[in-house]
C-alpha cells in the first residue's frame, strides 16, 4: 500500500489533543463542500451557522442556555466512559429528571417558598439517577449489556413522558395541548440577566464541572474508575469492587443528566412539553468523546455543540436549510474524531521509495528467471 500505518509504540500526547481539533476542522471542511453542493455560499453559511447566532448579547445567553444541559450530561457520561461503562441513556435520564421535576412543580404552583425549586431540582436529580440505576442494576445483577438496556430505557422514558403530557400532567386549561401548566414563579430558576434566558443553572454546571474534575483526577475513587476502564482484571486483582464502581458511575451520570432535565423545565421552558430535549443526551455522547472525557475538554466541546444547535436553528430560519444539520455535523464530527484518533497510536507513512524498490526487485527476479 502506498500509505501505511506504522505503530508509534506509545501514545502521542500531541495527537491526543490535536485529533479533536483536526476532527472539527474536517467537519467544517466537509460541511463547506456540502453547502457548495447544495448551492449555498459556504462562507456565508458558516457565518450564519457559527458566528451570527452569537453576535449579540441575547445570542450569547442562548448559547449558554443550550450548552448547559449538554455540558451536564456529557460530564456524567465522561465519568461512566472512563470506567468503560457505555451509558447511552443520558437522553432518557434527562427526560426522567424533567418528568419528576414537573410532577412536583405542577403541584407546587401555589407555593411561594424558594424551597420548592430546591425540592424540584433534587427530585429531578434523583429520578435521573434512579433511571440510570435501573441500568446499573440490570448490569450488575443480571449481566445485561448496558448499551442496549440504556437505549431501551431512553425509548421507555420518552413514551412515559408522552403519556404524562397527554394524560395525568396535561394542563386542564391548556386547550387540550399536550403540555403541563406553567410552573409557579417560586419553582422557576432565577434569571441572570434582564433580556436573556440564561439562568442560575449555570452555577450547577460549574459546580458539576469542578466536582467531576476532582472525582476523576484528584480522588482515589477516580483512580479506581480509570483502572476499571483500562483493565477489568487488574481492577479485580487490586481489590477494587467492580459492581460498586459500576453503580457509582451510573448514578453520577444519571444524576447529572436528571439535573439537566430538571433545569430545562424549571429554567428556559417553564413547563413540561413533549420536546424537552432536542437530543441533548445523544449530543452529549459526541461531546464527551470530543472533550477526551476530560472536564475542561468537555466544557469546550459542549460550547461547540451548543453553537451547532443554535446555528442549526438560525440556518433553518435564514437559509432554509434543514435543522437536522446539527445532528449531521454532530455525527460527522464523532466519525472524524475516531478516524483521526488512529494518529495517536500510529504514524502515517508514504511508501513511495519502498514500493519502487520492491518493483525493481521483482523485475530483477523475473529477468533472472528468464
Amino acid at each position, binding site marked *: 500500500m502506498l500509505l501505511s500505518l506504522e505503530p508509534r509504540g506509545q501514545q502521542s500526547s500531541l495527537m491526543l489533543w490535536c485529533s479533536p481539533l483536526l476532527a472539527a476542522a474536517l467537519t467544517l471542511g466537509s460541511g463547506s463542500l456540502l453547502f457548495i453542493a447544495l448551492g449555498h455560499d459556504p462562507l456565508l453559511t458558516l457565518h450564519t451557522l457559527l458566528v451570527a447566532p452569537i453576535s449579540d448579547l441575547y445570542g450569547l445567553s442562548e448559547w449558554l442556555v443550550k450548552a448547559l444541559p449538554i455540558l451536564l450530561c456529557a460530564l456524567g457520561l465522561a465519568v461512566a466512559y472512563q470506567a468503560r461503562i457505555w451509558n447511552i441513556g443520558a437522553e432518557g435520564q434527562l427526560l426522567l429528571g424533567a418528568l419528576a421535576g414537573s410532577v412536583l412543580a405542577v403541584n407546587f404552583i401555589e407555593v411561594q417558598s424558594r424551597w420548592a425549586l430546591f425540592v424540584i431540582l433534587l427530585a429531578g436529580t434523583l429520578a435521573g439517577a434512579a433511571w440510570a440505576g435501573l441500568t446499573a442494576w440490570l448490569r450488575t445483577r443480571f449481566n445485561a449489556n448496558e448499551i*442496549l438496556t440504556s437505549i431501551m430505557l431512553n425509548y421507555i422514558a420518552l413514551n412515559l413522558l408522552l403519556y404524562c403530557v397527554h394524560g395525568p400532567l396535561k394542563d386542564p386549561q391548556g386547550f387540550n395541548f399536550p403540555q403541563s401548566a406553567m410552573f409557579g414563579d417560586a419553582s422557576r430558576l432565577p434569571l441572570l440577566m434582564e433580556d436573556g434566558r440564561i439562568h442560575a443553572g449555570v452555577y450547577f454546571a460549574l459546580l458539576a464541572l469542578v466536582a467531576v474534575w476532582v472525582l476523576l483526577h484528584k480522588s482515589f475513587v477516580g483512580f479506581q474508575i480509570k483502572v476499571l476502564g483500562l483493565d477489568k482484571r487488574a481492577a479485580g486483582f487490586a481489590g477494587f469492587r467492580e459492581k460498586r464502581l459500576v453503580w457509582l458511575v451510573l448514578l453520577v451520570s444519571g444524576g447529572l443528566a436528571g439535573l439537566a432535565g430538571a433545569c430545562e423545565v424549571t429554567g428556559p421552558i417553564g413547563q413540561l412539553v413533549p420536546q424537552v430535549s432536542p437530543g441533548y443526551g445523544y449530543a452529549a455522547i459526541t461531546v464527551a468523546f470530543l472533550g477526551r472525557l476530560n472536564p475542561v475538554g468537555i466544557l469546550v466541546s459542549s460550547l461547540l455543540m451548543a453553537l451547532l444547535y443554535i446555528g442549526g436553528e438560525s440556518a433553518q430560519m435564514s437559509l432554509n436549510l434543514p435543522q437536522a444539520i446539527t445532528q449531521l455535523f454532530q*455525527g460527522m464530527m464523532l466519525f472524524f474524531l*475516531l478516524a483521526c484518533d488512529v494518529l495517536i497510536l500510529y504514524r502515517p507513512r508514504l511508501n513511495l521509495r519502498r514500493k519502487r524498490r520492491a518493483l525493481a526487485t521483482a523485475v530483477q527476479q523475473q529477468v533472472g528467471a528468464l
Partner: protein
Amino acid sequence: MDIDLLSNIFYAMVRCGTPLLLVALGELVCEKSGVLNLGQEGMMLFGAVMGFIIAFSTGNLWLGVLLAMFAGMLLSSLFALVALVFNANQVATGLALTIFGVGLSSFVGAAWVGKPLTGFEPVALPYLSEIPLIGRMLFAQDLLVYLSFVLFALVAWVTLQTRVGLIIQAVGENPDAASAMGLPVLAVRALAVLFGGAMAGLAGAYLSLAYTPMWAENMSAGRGWIALALVVFASWRVWRLLLGAYLFGLASILHLVAQGLGLAIPSSLLAMLPYVATIVVLVLLSRDKVRTRLYAPVSLGQPWQAGH
C-alpha cells in the same frame, strides 16, 4: 378471540417482525465474523430515506430497494474503514455511525416528510393464502416479506452448511488462527460488515416502501437497537433469530390484541412494550454468564490487526 382476529394478528406479527429479521440477519453475520456494529439504526434510517426518495422520484419501487441496500452498504463501508482499518473502538464507531446516519437521513429527507407513495401491496398466493390461521401470515404478504423468507433461508444455509459459513465463524472465533491458516481476516470482516449494511438498508426500505409507505424522521423507532438485542436473544443461532424477530413483532402489535380483547390502555404505554420486552429478554438470557460466553463469538468487538 375469533379465528379472523387471530389470523390478522399473525399476519401483522410477520409484517412487524420482518424489518427486525432483516437487520438482525445482517448483524448476525457481522457478529459471527467478530465485528460488533452498533450502527444498525443509522444505516436503516439512511436506507429508508434513500429508498423512499428514489422510489418516489423514479416511480420504481425495486430501484428504491436496490439503492436503499446500496445506501446501507455505503454507511457500513465508513464503519469498516474506521473500525477495521483504523482500528478504532467498535462500540464508539458504531455509535458514531448511528448518530451520523440519523442526522444524515433527517437532513436528506427533510423535504420528503409526509409525501404519499403507493408502496408494495400484498400479493396473495392462490389457494395457499386460504389456509386457516397461517395462510394469510405466510402467503398473503408483500414481495419484500417473501424476499425476507428467501434471505433467511439463504443466511441459514450459508452459515450452517457451507464453507463460507465456516470461514466467517473461524474469523470470529479465533482471528489469529484463521489468519495463520491463510484466511484474509480483515477482508472477511469487511465483507460481513458490508452485508450487514445492505441488510439494514433493505430493512429501512421495507419500512419506508412497504410497512408504512412514507418517510418520517426516526421512523425506525429503535428497531436497529432491538435487532442487536435479538442477536443476543438468539445466542447467535439463526433459527432462534427467526423466532425472536416474530416474537418482537408480536410485542409491537399488542395494541391490536388489546383492542381485540376490548382493553383501553393509552397508546404511549403500549408503545413501550417492545422496549420493555427487549430488556426482559436481555435479562433472561444474559443472567447466565457462562452461557453467554459459550455462544458469543470469542473475538466479538475486539480490534484485530495482521501480525500482532
